[in-house]
Each structure stands twice: as structure tokens, then as C-alpha cells.
């Protein structure tokens, strides 16, 4: 759980003094001199910088962790305006930006009075004591109760005037945590077990005064604290990006050598790089590689983190067959510069259903190692880590060399049909929940469908009878039979008797039956086996009174 406390007071209305020229692309066109009126460059206010930087922070977190990582805001001016809640429906940028727009621009008038950060911090800590949905769920089971931890982080963005004020904030924060924890908590609230307090000072360009930064310090077992000072606009955003990596254990990968058509000149293409963030665990395998491959990890200029460079492998256009890669884990990603053209080209390519293999840069030996794969599933892009190195299951003997491998008359097309009949689809929660889960019901269904299922063509006559038997074999696997279905099954049996009495030959596939042999391929013998097998099948499926009626019918007919 993270709470942003952002100052919305007059000081934040100050311009950041780093103007953005909006005229860059506009060349004066031939309308004679004076036709071109220059546009004054615009300047973001400190508030705008803080807002956009925290939006970026949220965007990255929610891209990679759509659930389970909660963020809300406390905006302080003369009063504290909470934005969002721990509720999962509030955990998205659309809702946050909407609330921000409602708040509007900070009022530059100093007479309104300074904003009260302290109140904001108190409100933030109070918010942290509120249980999230996941925590409430965990608290429900008594044995888990002691295991549920309540850890949080408060990120405070404002423009401070002096170091002493930040010291004060720190000690105020520490006292408040202790005070709040001493309360008696309602069942929906919890004490804070650990809190990380990050103070971010932002200042306009050029800096008016420099405040001391310090790295994360443990002030008490309950609290750690960090102070960061950044120049507004770009620097602030990049510092927050570095923070997000650290706070959520993310790492960066740069996909290099992406061939892309030039915007101006569609016939030529150049290579581009795209940087993405993902959980650091996706690098687990390459981290284990030799330490001397540290060339793999390149420090990103101007940012406090390293990025791994992996090479894009153009996918083969012809490979339509589904390949199962030896994938050990898959993590969501977020592009660093989401709106840039290379980024959106890459993400659109992936969202379109293609996948991209990523290769480690060639080492001295020149071998290629494919270490990762980027692919989208359901509109989300995942970075799959693949197993690298030799596998112990390489080059196994073919299944046809093992037991049962030399049998040639398996009923493979029939089993394929069975598989299609037993395909799984994701059920929705709204489905009336019975005593069994859908997957258990599917499992039971499989059990019924394979209750009597000869594996080879030569071991069955029933399943070689084609249309003569089809309605019986299809219906009998049902959980229950209706009266009409019983009649349908009986019809099949009567029909069999009829063709027997007419002494019609059985379909030619039946003649391959193993029971041929000494007694020859006599028709009566075949019919005898057919009815015997039919009986065995029906006995296997005797799960209801209705099923028993079908069996009884067969036995009755045969006894005549």
C-alpha cells in the first residue's frame, strides 16, 4: 500500500521555469513576412510536474501488478483531499486522473495560507491502517490472523524551504505512527507494522537552494525514511521512475535492434531500441551467468539503474505451428516511454498476436542464446523467461520406441473427436456454484467418456460400426438419460438385431478383429462378439436407472 501526499498549495503553483518550446516543427510557410506569429513557450507548474511524475509511477506499477499493489493519494492545500481508496475499482489511472481534474489548479494566492502537509501525512497514515480487501479476506481465517502484515509507504511531494523543516516532518511522522498504532483498532483496521517514508522535494529550475538528500535510513523498527530532492519536470519524473524500480523490485531490459520502417521514408528501415520494465525475477537466470558478463548490465545515463540489453530476433513469418517454449516464468511488462513511436510499434506488434524471441548478446564463443520471449496474452504483454543452457531432457528416445510404440492401429482420430468434445473453457463466476467446481465436473465427464474406450481399431467392433452404433455410444456417456434418449438407445439395439437377422456383413474394418483366428471370419461369430462388447460397454455405464433400462433391453433381446 502506498499513499502519495502531494502539496496542492500556492508554492506548487509556481512555474517550473523550464519552458517547452511548442514551435519546433512549425516552419514559417510562404505567406510573406509577418504572417508567422511566434507562440510563447509554455511552462509546467510544480504541481503539474508532481502530478505527471506520480501518474507515471502509478502507470508502471499498475501495468506490471494489476492487482495487489494499491496506491492512493492525499492532496493537501488548506484541507486534505483524499483521492481514491483501497477499493480495486479505484486502482486505475482513469479514475485517478479524473479526480485530479476535479481538484483543478493550485491557487497561487499566498493569502490563502500555506498548505498543511502534516495533516496530509496524518491522513495518509490513517489510510494505511484501513485494511485492503485482500487483507480483510486473509483476516477471515483465524489461523492466518497473526500472519497478516500491514506494511505501507508514504511518498510526500512538496517544495520545501529548508532542511530543518524536513527533519521536523520526519520526527512528526515517526511520532504519529507510534500514536496511531496505540489505538484500539476496529476489525476493519490494523496497526502499521512497517512504513517507508519518502520525502521528495521539488524545486524549479534553476535551483533556488539545495536541500540535503539522504538515502534510506531505518529510523526505528517501524519506520525507514528517505529524502530526495529533484529539479522539477524531467528530473523529478526520472527520480520517481528510479524509485518505482526500487520500491517494487523491478528491473529494466532494453530490446535492441528492432527493425522499424522510417516515418518519412517507408521503404527503408532503421533499428531502434525500446526499454521495458518488469519484475527483477525475470532476470534470475541471466543473473546467475558468469560475473564477467557484467557488460550485459549497462548503467542508464542520468538514471540510477542498470538495464539489460537483449537482442530482438525477427520472428520467422512461416512458423504457424504452435511451439511450446521451455518457459520458466512470465511477468507483465510496462514500456518506459510508452508514447514513443518505437515503443508503440513494439507493443502493437505484440498485441497483434506475434511473439518476439530475445537473445543474449553474443559472447566470445559466438553462440546464440535465446533467453526471453515477449508475447501478449489477452491484451497484456508478458516477458517469458526461457530456460537457458543444455537441458537434461534433450534428445530423448521417441515415444514410438517405448512401450506401446509399435502398435499401429490406435483410434487416434476418434480420440481427437473425444478431445474436442471435452474441450475446456473458462467459466464465469456467475455460473451457479454447485458443490463441485467446473474443473471437477469436467474431470467427471472425462471419466464417463472414457469409461469404456478401446484404444485400437482391432480391439473393438462396437466403435467400428459407424452410423449403426453412433447414437448409442454418444448418448450412453451422459450423466443421465431422458426417456427419449433411452428409446433412442433401444432403437440402436433393435436395429442391430435387424441387420443380424438379415445377415448383413459387418463393416469391413471389423474384420481385422483379433478374435478372428481359428474359427475364421464367420459372420455369426462377429455378431456374437459385437453383442458381447455392447453388453460390456453398457455394463460400464450402468450409472442410473435409465442406463440400466438400456442394458436390460439388450439382455432381453439376446436371451430370445
Amino acid at each position, binding site marked *: 500500500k502506498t499513499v502519495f501526499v502531494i502539496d496542492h498549495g500556492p508554492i506548487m503553483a509556481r512555474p517550473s521555469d523550464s519552458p517547452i518550446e511548442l514551435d519546433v516543427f512549425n516552419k514559417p510557410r510562404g505567406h510573406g513576412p509577418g504572417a508567422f506569429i511566434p*507562440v510563447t513557450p509554455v511552462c509546467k507548474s510544480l504541481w503539474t510536474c508532481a502530478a505527471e511524475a506520480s501518474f507515471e509511477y502509478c502507470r508502471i506499477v499498475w501495468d506490471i501488478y494489476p492487482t495487489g499493489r494499491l496506491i492512493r493519494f492525499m492532496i493537501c492545500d488548506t484541507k486534505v483531499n483524499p483521492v481514491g481508496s483501497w477499493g480495486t475499482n479505484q486502482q*486505475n489511472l482513469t479514475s485517478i486522473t479524473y479526480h485530479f481534474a476535479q481538484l483543478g489548479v493550485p491557487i497561487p494566492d499566498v493569502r490563502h495560507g500555506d498548505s498543511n502537509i502534516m495533516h496530509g501525512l496524518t491522513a495518509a497514515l490513517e489510510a494505511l491502517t484501513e485494511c485492503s480487501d485482500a487483507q480483510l479476506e486473509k483476516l477471515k481465517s483465524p489461523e492466518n490472523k497473526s500472519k497478516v502484515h500491514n506494511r505501507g509507504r508514504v511518498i510526500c511531494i512538496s517544495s520545501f524551504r529548508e532542511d530543518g523543516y524536513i527533519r521536523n516532518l520526519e520526527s512528526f511522522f515517526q511520532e504519529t505512527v507510534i500514536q496511531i498504532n496505540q489505538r484500539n483498532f476496529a476489525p476493519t483496521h490494523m496497526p502499521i507494522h512497517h512504513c517507508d517514508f519518502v520525502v521528495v522535494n521539488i524545486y524549479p529550475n534553476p535551483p533556488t537552494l539545495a536541500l540535503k538528500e539522504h538515502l534510506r535510513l531505518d529510523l526505528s523498527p517501524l519506520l525507514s525514511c528517505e529524502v530526495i530532492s529533484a529539479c522539477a519536470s524531467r528530473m523529478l519524473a526520472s527520480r520517481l521512475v528510479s524509485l518505482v524500480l526500487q520500491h517494487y523490485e523491478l528491473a529494466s531490459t532494453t530490446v535492441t535492434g528492432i527493425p522499424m520502417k522510417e516515418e518519412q521514408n517507408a521503404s527503408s528501415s532503421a533499428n531502434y531500441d525500446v526499454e521495458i520494465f518488469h519484475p527483477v525475477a525475470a532476470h534470475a537466470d541471466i543473473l546467475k551467468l558468469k560475473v564477467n558478463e557484467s557488460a550485459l548490465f549497462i548503467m542508464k545515463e542520468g538514471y540510477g539503474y542498470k538495464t539489460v540489453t537483449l537482442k530482438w530476433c525477427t520472428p520467422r513469418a512461416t512458423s504457424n505451428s504452435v511451439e511450446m517454449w521451455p518457459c520458466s516464468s512470465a511477468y507483465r511488462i510496462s514500456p518506459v516511454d510508452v508514447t514513443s513511436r518505437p515503443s508503440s510499434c513494439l507493443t502493437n506488434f505484440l498485441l497483434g498476436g506475434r511473439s518476439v524471441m530475445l537473445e543474449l548478446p553474443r559472447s566470445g564463443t559466438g553462440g546464440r542464446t535465446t533467453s526471453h520471449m515477449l508475447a501478449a496474452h489477452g491484451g497484456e504483454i508478458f516477458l517469458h523467461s526461457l530456460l537457458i543452457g543444455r537441458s537434461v531432457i534433450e534428445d*530423448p528416445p521417441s515415444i514410438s520406441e517405448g512401450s506401446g510404440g509399435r502398435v499401429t492401429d490406435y483410434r487416434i482420430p476418434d480420440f481427437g473427436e473425444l478431445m474436442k468434445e471435452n474441450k*475446456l473453457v473458462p467459466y464465469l463466476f456467475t*455460473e451457479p456454484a454447485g458443490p463441485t467446481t467446473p474443473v471437477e465436473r469436467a474431470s467427471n465427464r472425462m471419466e464417463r467418456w472414457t469409461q469404456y474406450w478401446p484404444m485400437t481399431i482391432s480391439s473393438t467392433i462396437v466403435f467400428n460400426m459407424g452410423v449403426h452404433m453412433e447414437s448409442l455410444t454418444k448418448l450412453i456417456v451422459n450423466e443421465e438419460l431422458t426417456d427419449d434418449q433411452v428409446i433412442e438407445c433401444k432403437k440402436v439395439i433393435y436395429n442391430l438385431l435387424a441387420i443380424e437377422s438379415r445377415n448383413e456383413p459387418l463393416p469391413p474394418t471389423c474384420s481385422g478383429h483379433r478374435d478372428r483366428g481359428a474359427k475364421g471370419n464367420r459372420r455369426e461369430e462377429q455378431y456374437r462378439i459385437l453383442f458381447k462388447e455392447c453388453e460390456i460397454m453398457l455394463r460400464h455405464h450402468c450409472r442410473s436407472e435409465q442406463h440400466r433400462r438400456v442394458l436390460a433391453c439388450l439382455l432381453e433381446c439376446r436371451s430370445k
Partner: protein
Amino acid sequence: MPLAIVLDVSLSMSRVVSTPEEEEEYQRKHLAIHGINVLLDHLNTHSKLEFVSLVVFSSMYEILSSFTRDYDAVRAKLQNIEDRDKTYLEAALHGVSILINDEWGQNTPCHVLLITDGSSSLNILGLSRTLLNGQRGSTRPEEALPFLPFNFPAKFHVIAITSPDDPSLAVSMPVYQKIIDLSGAEGSVFVPEGGLSLKSVQNMFTKIAELHYSSFEGTLRSGSLSDSILLYPPPRVSDAENMEVIHCKISKDITICGFVDLIDVASPPAVSRHLVLPVHSANKSDASLVELKAEGEGEDDLLATPEEGKNPSFCVLLHGALKVENMGAICNVGEKWYGLLYSWADSKKKSNLMLSIFEPGTKCIPWLGDLSLLGSFSEATSPGSFTTFPIKPNEKRSYAQSCVVWVQPGNLQADIQKILRHARKMPDKTQHFYKELNRLKRAALSMGFADLLETMAVILDRECTLLPHTAHPDCAMQLTHASAQLRLSRDVRHNITALRTKFTPDD
């Protein structure tokens, strides 16, 4: 896991073992070779796909056989082992470390089996001084044994071919133990129990083999169709960490729940992958066939048990069908634990049935959703009760929607350029123009970027004056309208809509 046998071939290994009860005289070397053969026999019957390598060492090491499944080749090498000079454990560790790094890299767990004679040779005494006593001035352990700890996950066992009451063990045992500790691998020292003899060595190797190379035997089942199977490599007990540690052991019974198209499961993350090998058992044959025969009258003479390979196997049937249909079978491998069976080919020709075991739990693959909610397509009651793969998240990710980030000034400039590009192409692009304009307005309002709105209005006004004569008259009207609206409206809920002009196509 791949096994590296590291055998001491120093002269001390050719010492003769004096055993009163046995007639023949054996050298320690022979006992060791006998033991290795016992181990290979065990592998041959229980774990045929295991890779084995053979390294011999004295003061130098030599790789006699790199990792192979051809156990007979390893045996053949064992026949022609020469005696060399003296024991030097550093060489052994060096050799095995290089061999494993070359073949398997650093991620594959390997088993190192060091076979030596347990005598207190000069080398052992030296190591004892360096490693255990830590005498001043002597080399530190990391200098003496630069290859420890192993840079790959390993099991490491030391086997001393000596009698348990050999006095030199008092010196050598602590050294072996220390080396195992330093290696960072799990392992222990083995000494034959109850005196040195062919029998005791054999027992010791059998014990090691059974301890580490027992195969996983289970049943793959669906209804009456079932098959005894071996999983290779044998699954290990896995620990899943999800707020609390759950210990999971894979069930012996693997049941098929249903089938999915491989294209839907894509490449799912898996904790481990195993070959599913059908096991031939003589007493088992096609159950339905047996029943049919049993009912037959005196036809038993025809029921000769089919030879191996001729007996139909469920695995082969399943594999064939999965391969043809490009599908996978979701199966239950334990309590709330699932896996996927599919056809997998290392090369184009040899394909196999493979089992990928997912992370324990039912929500291990985001795009398949909760696995316990997978139900039969044909049994679904209404079309609205299920969705299709892949499961789509409720919200789109930032890269899948038009998201506004103006951290880099270039991004803002590009957005403004885009609006102007559309503006010049009105009325064809009127819709796009207003869509982009509203997007910019919304973003500016949520960031409290008021100046931008004013500036944008100015830019639109200027654009109006810059319009070429060829421009459509609607263009100017829309631009003026948009710029006025930008100055007026400060409500995020309000979208600027196109001005209805006489040029607006009637709808």
C-alpha cells in the same frame, strides 16, 4: 540429475584388499569399478535417460567420458583404467568443475560422486592443514581450492573405498567433510559398512543409487484408460511461496480434466517439465480387451501376451491425438495443482509426451484464469456462462490504450503536431481532430496544466490565419470554434464537440 563420477586412479587405489572370507584378491580399484557398475545397472533399469560422465584423477585429471546416456561406453572405459601416480583432490575438483560448466552451464543441478581410497596421503595431510587447522602463513582455503564452492547447483558425495576402522579415516574424513561444506552442495561421505569387501561396496553403491536415482512411477489415468508411467526427470518436491510456504508433493495419480488448444495456453510458465514414459507391465493389457476375452469361450489360446511395444499404451494414443489436433491436456497433479500434457519434439522426428507442471495453485497462469473454473465447453448451460481464451483483464494496460505522458517535452510537441495535422485535413478528419483535442484537454486538466490550454487556443487561432487558400471553408470555422471552446470549458467531463456547419454531412 546428470551424474559425474570422479574416480581416484592413484597407486594407492591398487592396494590389495585382504579379506579372509573371500578367495580372490581384489584391489581397491576393482572394488570401486564394481561399485560403479552396480550404480550403472541401477540407472539402466530405473533411470535410463540420466547422463553419466567419468573423470579419473591422480595428480592430473582426465575426462574419460563426457556426459552420455550410453552406459556401456562408460563401462568399457572402466575396463581400461591405468594406474597413475598420487591422489590430488584439487585436480579432481578442477576437472569436474570444468566438465560440468562446459556441458551444463550454471543452472542445471548436477551430482558429483568422488570415489577415493580414504588414505591419509600427503595431499590429504596438506589439505587438512590448510582447511582445518588454518595455520598461519599457509594458503587460505579459497586459494587452495579455487573451484569451490561449485558455481552450479549440486549434490556432492565422497565415497571412501576403505574399511570403516581404517585409522587414516580419522585424518581424511574431516577433510572430505570440509570439502563438501566448502562446495556449498548438499552431500555426505560414504564408507562401506562392516569391513571392505565386494559385498559391502556393492551394498553401499546400491544404497546411494536408491537414494538418489529412484524413479517417479505413477499412473496417468482417465476413466478406464490408464497407463503406468515414469516421469523423467523425477519431479522434486517444490516449495511455493505465497505469503506462506506450502509444501507440495506431486500426486502419483495424474488425472486428465480436459483439453485445450495449444494456441490458447501459449507457452505457460512451468516449475518443471518431465518426459512421460509409458512403462510396460506384462500383466496389464487393454482392460476392455481382457474383459471381452474373458467372456469368450475357450479362446484363451489366442490370448498370448503381446510382446513389448505391441501392447497398446494410453500414453501413445494420447500423444498421437494431441499431436494431430495441436491440443494439450490439462491434468490434475495434486491438490489444487495442475499441469499440461502435450506433444513435444526435440528434433523434428522424435516426439514425446511431455508434462509441464505449473506453479501450485489455481491462478498460476493469468491468461487461463482460475484453473478450477475451467469447465467443459459442451456442458455449459448457456452461452453467457463462459468466456473464451485468453482471459482479458478488466482494464487495459497503459500501452494498449491512448495514454498521455508528457514527461519528455517531445511527447507533448508530438501530440500538438498530431492535432494540427488533423486540423489541416478537416473536414475529413474532423472526428480525429476533436478526439485528439479532447484527449489533450483531459490530460492538461488532470495535471493542472492550465497554461497549455491557453497556448493551444492561441496555436489554433494562428493555424486559422495560416490556412492556405485551398483549405476547405469548414476548416476555419471548426478551428475558431475549438479555440473558443478551449478557453471556455474547464470541466473534465465536458467534451468539445464539432460545430455543426452546413458542411456537416447530414446523418
